[in-house]
C-alpha cells in the first residue's frame, strides 16, 4: 500500500521539478542550469551507482586474473584434473571441487530436514513466547562468526570423531556437521517466513474440511510455502559452498580425493585461503580462477533463487 503511494509521490515530483520554485538559488552553467537540488540528486545517484560499479570491478579483476590460466590449461583439465600440485605446474581443482560439493551435500542432508521441521515448529506449533525465544536464539546462531564455529569444531567435533568413529577426526564429516549448524539459521528463518506468509484461509479451509492440524500442515501449508522453502535451501547451499574459515579449520585440507566421510578433504575456498599468502604467478592465477568458479556458481544460485521467487509469485496468483 505504502509503495503505490510513494510511487505516485515520486512521479508527481518529477513534474514539479520542471519549474523550480526558487529561481534565486539557481546557478547558471554553461550548457545546463545546475541547482543545489539537482546536484544533491546527482550525488545520491552516484552513491547508488557504487553497488553496480563494485560488482563490475569484482568481475573484471577476478576474471582478468583467473580466466587466462584456465584458457591456457583448458577448461576440462582445470575442472576435472584431480592433481593439484603447484610446484609441478599442475593446477587441477577436481579434488577440491568434489570436496566442496561433498561437504556441502552432506551438510544439507541433515540441516535441511532439521531446519524445515524447526521452521514448522516455530510458525505453527510453538506457543508465541517459545517461538519468539527460539527466533532470538536462531538470530544469535546466525550472528556467531564462522571462525568461532570452526574453533568449536576443532576442539569438540574433531576429537569426538577421532575418539569414537576413527580416523584423525579432521574429515568430511566434521565439515558437514559444522557447516550444517552454520546454515541452519538461513534455512530456518526463510522457511519460517514462507510458512507464516501462507494465507490463513488456506489452513482454515483445510481444518473446516475435517483435516487435522498436522494434515493441514503437510497437505496445504507446506505445498503453498514450497517456493519459499526452496529459496531457503538454495541460499543455505550458497552459504555452505562459499564458507571458508569454519571448513578450513576442521576438514584436514588434504588435496587427495576423499575416500570416505572420515577422510580429510580440501574445499575450493580452503584452498584459496591456505595458499594465497605465498602464491605467485600461475599458482596465484589458479587461485583466482578458483575464486572465479565460486563467483559464477554463486551467481547461478542467485539467478535460480530469483527465478524461484518469481515462480512462487505466479503460483500464488
Amino acid at each position, binding site marked *: 500500500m505504502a509503495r503505490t503511494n510513494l510511487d505516485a509521490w515520486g512521479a508527481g515530483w518529477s513534474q514539479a521539478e520542471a519549474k523550480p520554485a526558487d529561481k534565486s538559488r539557481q546557478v547558471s552553467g554553461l550548457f545546463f542550469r545546475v541547482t543545489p537540488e539537482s546536484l544533491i540528486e546527482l550525488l545520491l545517484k552516484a552513491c547508488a551507482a557504487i553497488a553496480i560499479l563494485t560488482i563490475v570491478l569484482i568481475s573484471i579483476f*577476478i576474471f582478468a586474473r583467473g580466466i587466462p590460466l584456465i584458457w591456457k590449461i583448458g577448461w576440462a583439465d582445470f575442472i576435472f584434473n584431480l592433481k593439484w600440485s603447484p610446484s609441478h605446474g599442475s593446477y587441477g581443482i577436481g579434488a577440491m571441487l568434489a570436496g566442496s560439493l561433498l561437504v556441502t551435500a552432506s551438510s544439507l542432508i541433515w540441516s535441511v530436514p532439521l531446519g524445515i521441521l524447526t521452521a514448522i515448529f516455530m510458525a505453527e506449533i510453538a506457543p508465541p513466547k517459545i517461538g519468539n525465544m527460539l527466533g532470538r536464539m536462531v538470530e544469535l546462531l546466525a550472528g556467531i562468526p564462522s571462525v568461532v564455529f570452526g574453533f568449536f569444531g576443532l576442539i569438540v567435533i574433531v576429537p569426538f570423531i577421532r575418539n569414537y568413529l576413527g580416523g584423525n577426526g579432521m574429515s568430511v564429516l566434521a565439515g558437514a556437521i559444522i557447516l550444517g549448524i552454520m546454515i*541452519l539459521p538461513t534455512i530456518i528463518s526463510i522457511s519460517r517466513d514462507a510458512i507464516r506468509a501462507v494465507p490463513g484461509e488456506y489452513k482454515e479451509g483445510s481444518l473446516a474440511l475435517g483435516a487435522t492440524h498436522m494434515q493441514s500442515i503437510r497437505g496445504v501449508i507446506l505445498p503453498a510455502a514450497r517456493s519459499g522453502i526452496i529459496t531457503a535451501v538454495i541460499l543455505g547451499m550458497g552459504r555452505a559452498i*562459499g564458507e571458508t574459515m569454519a571448513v578450513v579449520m576442521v576438514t584436514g585440507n588434504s588435496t587427495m580425493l576423499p575416500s570416505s566421510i572420515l577422510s580429510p578433504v580440501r574445499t575450493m575456498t580452503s584452498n584459496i*585461503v591456505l595458499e594465497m599468502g605465498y602464491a605467485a604467478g600461475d599458482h596465484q592465477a589458479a587461485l583466482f580462477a578458483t575464486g572465479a568458479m565460486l563467483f559464477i556458481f554463486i551467481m547461478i544460485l542467485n539467478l535460480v533463487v530469483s527465478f524461484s521467487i518469481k515462480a512462487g509469485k505466479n503460483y500464488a496468483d
Partner: protein
Amino acid sequence: MLTSSGHDRMIRCFLWFSGLSVAAILFIIVAYIAIKGLSVVSLDFIMEAPRRAGKEGGISTTIVSTIYLTLVSLCLAVPLGVGSAIYLEEYARRSSRFAGLVNLAAETLAGIPSIVFGLFGFVFFVIYLNLGWSIISGSLTMAIMILPTITRTSQEAILSVPIQYRENSLALGASKWQTVRRVVLPSAVPGIITGIILSIGRAVGETAALILTAGSALGMPGGLFDPARTMSVHLYVLAMEGISMERAYGTAFLIIVLIMVINYLANLSLSRMTNPGRRI
C-alpha cells in the same frame, strides 16, 4: 495401528524435538566456549599486548585493530549506503532500469562469499591501488561487504516513514532535499542504526577477507596504512597454528560476548523503530 490423533501427537512431539535440538546446539556451543574461556579472560587479558606471537600476554592490539577496522569501514559504507537508499526510495522511479540494476547489484553483493571479496580486495586494493596489507585495504573491502546490509535496512527505514510527513513538509514550502534531510531521515534514524549495528556484527566476525587484505601482523596499528590483525583472525591463527589453545578460548569467548551485545542492541533498536500501525 495408530489412530489419526495418535499420529498427530507423534508428529507434534517430533516438531518439538526439532525446535529444542536447535536451541540445544546453540546452548552447547555458547556454554562450552564460555566455560573454557571465562577462566582465561581477565582485565589483563584485554589490556595487555600479546607477546611471543600470542603465546603469552593478552590480546589488546587485536581489540584495537578490530575497532579501528570496523570504524573506518563504517565511515566509508554508511554515507554511501544511506545515500543510495535515499536515492532509491525518494528520487528514483521504482520502475526505472537504474534502480532495478542497483537493487540487483546489492542483492548479488549480499550473496558473494567473503573469500571472493578477499580475493578482490587483495588484487584491487592491496596490489592494483598499491595500498598494501593495511587497515585501509581491509576497511575498503569490509565496506563493500556491509554496503548491502546498510542500504537494505536504510531503504526499509525510509519506506516506513509515513507519506504524510513528506506531504506536510512539502506543503509548508520545504524543498525536496530539505524534506529528506529534516523530516524523512530523522524519522528513519532508528532503522538506519539497526543496519549499522548488524554491520558491526559482520565486521567483528569477518576473517577470510581480512586475512587477504589487512594481513595478520600482530603489532599495534599506528595508521591507516599499517597492517592489522583483528580478534577473529587472531583466533584463527592461534587455533590453526596451535600457538595457545587457552588464549584461543579467551578470544573466542570475547567474540561471542561481543556478538551477543551487538545482537541485543540490534533488537533494542529494532523494537524502538517499530511504532504502532507500521511494522517493518
